[in-house]
């Protein structure tokens, strides 16, 4: 079965090609059969492979598919590599991928046949690219997948191309990603120059054999790779494309912009951990970018009213956590968060999709509310996923997030690479981000599902639970969000007995960087309780602000009925106002500042400015192209003189 590893990327590719070969002329049934069918087959194949692999004690299986480039001194094989790391990625990419394929049947059924087929063709193509990325045994194969997912995300973001901003968002995503890819590509060349190979195993052995020899090259390569990761995983300062990417259909946001593609950067860093662990600087940079992004994006999340935007910024923030973990040497921990995050964030997006579906396309939470009664399944699944994201035990997010914070604290206390203080600061940031996360997530829950509905009556009339093809995926993912955390229960929680299957499984390929003296068990318990407490605090604060219909609708009624009572209510109302003034607005202001100020002006500004200047340069060159032969001749003449002068002097 392992010899059939190539089937894993091949199956979705076949699906995509079939749909394209049908020139998108298939009816919905055929499309569904091909698109979802290929995804299902992939899942089956992966399941079979993983079952067999489970008995192999995490040894690395490399399957050389075909000799790809072999000329001169460049030799690259199209080789696939199955090891614990890729196995983990494989498992959830295919599972979540399949589930979302199913979900899309219901979500996209309103589209025309063409669009429907196009959608599934792109989705399959994406699966192919993502699996290639995950299974690639060398940097070049990985880069193929890397670019592939980028392309698919570009095509899917711009899926509703009749909307101007969708197309714009697509372009933005692609261009911003190219900036990252530029770094990645340079890193590949550099690595090739230094190691003579881009094969992961080859580079690892070379480094293990003689670390000193490559000391000079390690840091630049690691940093260039990280530039690529920043672009793909939407970290500061290149995160701008991800929120815009929400213009795409919701299943796409769930699959590509939450569960799988955006985690590719983390995966790549962990995959290359043998390089990173040799470069303290790079490690610190990774951790710092991750930590700062985590808190930064969380603050932005506070000011969002579009339900998908909230989730988008929370994704950016969570990705920050993952990098923070990797930077602190907890590679397995980072991947664990990738793993759990895939489930609950996919679940949240699909839930949001279901909500939008129910509210007939409404995405603004200010015109929602009280939906819990009408769409219970969506509500409960959304709630489970939210709790997981907030890190409330025993849901999945708790274990992974706690693992990360614990490791970062340990790195600080144990003075990892002599950067102890910095890691402690980052830990504090992470903790603060956890608080904000809990706050804005429950703000979303209350605004969406609790209180009174604030939309139009006919909207309210139309609100309905989604079809089975949409609710079942929600249930599956919710179950995942609740349970998968148990795979990686931290040792502290079990009072020292090592039940952390996840980390021990990954230990062969991504061993955690241990610090000399890990913190005591008591300390770790304090940390755990602290993080839970912080999360609960956030939830309570949100409840205080946003729950209860009075907060919004009461005043008018009271005013009409009895002016006497009005004062009291008004006071209550003022209290609310006070809270609002005291806490929410400043936070909101901060968020809005960091959002408007930094994002829009600084980053978009630089992007637009660069585009602007290239345009100017282009016009300048156009100006030189006068269309007059004599000027051209003069050009040639001057060129010739310059050349002659150059060679003489």
């Amino acid at each position, binding site marked *: 079965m392992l010899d059939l590893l190539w089937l894993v990327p091949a199956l979705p590719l076949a699906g995509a090609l079939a749909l394209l070969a049908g020139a998108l002329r298939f009816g919905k049934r055929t499309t569904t059969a091909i698109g979802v069918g290929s995804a299902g087959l992939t899942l089956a194949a992966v399941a079979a492979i993983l079952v067999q692999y489970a008995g192999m004690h995490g040894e690395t299986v490399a399957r050389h598919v075909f000799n790809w480039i072999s000329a001169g001194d460049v030799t690259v094989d199209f080789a696939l590599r199955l090891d614990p790391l890729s196995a983990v990625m494989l498992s959830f990419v295919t599972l979540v991928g399949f589930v979302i394929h199913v979900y899309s049947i219901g979500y996209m059924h309103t589209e025309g046949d063409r669009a429907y087929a196009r959608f599934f063709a792109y989705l399959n193509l994406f699966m192919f690219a993502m699996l290639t990325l995950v299974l690639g045994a060398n940097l070049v194969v990985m880069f193929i997948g890397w670019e592939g997912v980028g392309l698919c995300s570009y095509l899917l973001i711009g899926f509703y191309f009749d909307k101007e901003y969708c197309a714009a968002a697509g372009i933005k995503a692609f261009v911003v990603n190219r900036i990252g890819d530029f770094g990645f590509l340079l890193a590949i060349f550099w690595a090739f120059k230094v190691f003579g190979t881009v094969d992961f195993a080859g580079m690892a052995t070379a480094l293990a054999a003689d670390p000193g020899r490559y000391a000079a090259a390690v840091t630049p390569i690691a940093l260039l790779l990280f530039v690529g990761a920043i672009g793909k995983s939407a970290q500061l300062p290149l995160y701008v494309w991800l929120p815009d990417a929400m213009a795409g259909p919701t299943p796409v946001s769930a699959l590509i912009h939450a569960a799988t593609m955006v985690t590719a950067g983390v995966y790549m860093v962990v995959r290359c951990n043998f390089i990173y662990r040799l470069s303290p600087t790079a490690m610190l940079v990774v951790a710092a970018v991750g930590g700062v992004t985590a808190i930064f994006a969380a603050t932005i999340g506070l000011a969002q009213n579009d339900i998908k935007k909230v989730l988008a910024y929370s994704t950016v923030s969570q990705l920050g956590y993952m990098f923070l973990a990797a930077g602190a040497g907890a590679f397995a921990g980072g991947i664990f968060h990738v793993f759990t995050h895939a489930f609950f964030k996919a679940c949240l997006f699909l839930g949001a999709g279901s909500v939008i579906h129910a509210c007939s396309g409404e995405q603004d939470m200010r015109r929602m509310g009280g939906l819990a009664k009408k769409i219970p399944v969506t509500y409960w699944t959304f709630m489970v996923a939210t709790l997981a994201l907030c890190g409330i035990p025993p849901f999945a997010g708790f274990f992974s997030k706690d693992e990360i914070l614990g490791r970062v604290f340990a790195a600080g206390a144990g003075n990892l690479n002599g950067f102890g203080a910095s890691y402690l600061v980052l830990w504090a940031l992470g903790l603060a981000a956890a608080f904000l996360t809990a706050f804005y997530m429950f703000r979303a829950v209350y605004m969406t599902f609790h209180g009174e509905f604030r939309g139009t009556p006919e909207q309210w009339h139309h609100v309905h639970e989604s079809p089975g093809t949409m609710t079942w995926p929600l249930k599956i993912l919710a179950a995942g969000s609740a349970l998968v955390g148990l795979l990686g229960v931290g040792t502290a929680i079990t009072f020292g007995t090592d039940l952390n299957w996840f980390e021990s499984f990954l230990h062969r390929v991504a061993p955690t960087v241990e610090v000399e003296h890990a913190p005591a068990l008591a300390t770790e318990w304090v940390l755990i309780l602290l993080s839970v407490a912080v999360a609960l605090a956030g939830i309570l604060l949100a409840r205080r602000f946003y729950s209860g219909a009075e907060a919004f609708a009461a005043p008018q009624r009271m005013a009409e009925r009895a002016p006497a009572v009005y004062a009291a209510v008004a006071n209550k109302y003022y209290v609310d106002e006070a809270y609002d003034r005291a806490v929410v607005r400043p936070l909101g202001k901060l968020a809005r500042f960091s959002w408007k100020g930094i994002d829009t002006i600084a980053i978009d500004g630089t992007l637009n400015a660069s585009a602007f200047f290239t345009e100017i340069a282009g016009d300048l060159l*156009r100006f030189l*192209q*006068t*269309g*007059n*032969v*004599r000027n051209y*001749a*003069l050009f040639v*003449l001057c060129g*010739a003189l310059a050349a002659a002068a150059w060679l003489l002097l």
Partner: protein
Amino acid sequence: MISTAHVLVLSLALFTLGVVGMAVRRNFITVLMCVELILNAANLNFIAFSRQLGDLTGQVFAVFVITIAAAEAAIGLGIIVALVRLKQTVNLDQVNVMEG
């Protein structure tokens, strides 16, 4: 006695005339003549050098260049004729539909 140097100076002068002429003259036919100037400057070099080196290659090549120059002139004239038929002008400055 004429030395190679003399010829070189002459050919350089011709070459310069030709190249500069191509860059400054408007009349297509004049430009065509400038092309001939350049090619023949090169020919002068070849012949002078082959005499200096006592090696016939240069002269043989010069013969080839003459033929090529003829063909080039023919095509140039052909283009001019077509141009005149279409635009009634041989002024290169009026050949500027495309630019930018």
